[in-house]
């Protein structure tokens, strides 16, 4: 499923890299511990977290993630948005908590480890 379709289905707001929403999302991972995401996420994953500081962009870039969903009404720092624009990492926001974001992604056919 394309990132743009997920954005539509979950009514996410786009905070950065609006030109990079055409990418195929091949899986998902949810965690707020950066080393955990580093170790266990996969290329093409959508990452659900509540961390909005600039280091999330570094993780997404290093792991070639499809995008980041900031759950629970969290907003990215201004610097996070700037870094994400530079690196072409889509950051998407929602009021839904992580648990519900993941539930909805599952229903759309986006899974973790298959």
């Amino acid at each position, binding site marked *: 499923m394309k990132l743009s379709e997920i954005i539509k289905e979950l009514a996410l707001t786009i905070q950065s890299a609006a030109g990079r929403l055409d990418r195929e999302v091949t899986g998902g991972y949810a965690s707020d511990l950066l080393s955990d995401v580093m*170790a266990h996420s996969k290329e093409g994953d959508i990452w659900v977290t509540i961390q909005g500081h600039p280091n999330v962009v*570094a993780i997404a870039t290093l792991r070639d993630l499809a995008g980041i969903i900031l759950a629970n009404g969290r907003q990215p720092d201004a610097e996070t948005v700037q870094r994400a624009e530079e690196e072409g990492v889509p950051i998407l926001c929602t009021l839904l908590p992580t648990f519900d974001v993941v539930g909805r992604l599952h229903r759309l056919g986006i899974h973790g480890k298959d």
Partner: protein
Amino acid sequence: MEKKELMWDYEIEGKDFRNAGRVSSKVKDILKELGFDPDFVRRVAIASYEAEMNVVCHADKGTLHFAILPQALQIVVKDRGPGIPDIELAMQEGYSTAPPEIREMGFGAGMGLSNMKKNADELHIVSTVGQGTVVEMVMRSPRSRQGSA
């Protein structure tokens, strides 16, 4: 790549969370550009990121030296910092000495050294308390796909 050794050196600033991860991104970009196997690049990126973040989280400053040798890739991260009193304990997954404000950012999960160990073929740590730490990682590589730089 016969006989040619390629090496790079980068500085890492302690507590500079703004630029944290940039060195590892450069390492990754270089390897990607040289055509290394994506899975190998992924392993190097994880190991390098964790070593870089340890300097950012714990040390005053450090350097990352990264070399493509004929048979392997070598990463040496040296820092001036508090050192590790008990390396065996520090290697245990979940053990961390990161302060609370760093943990709130999602660092300090106690997974850094174990992520390095899992992704590197060799991991050597030499540390002197009150002076600093040297971490050397060796990753035996599938050759560069294009075979030259």
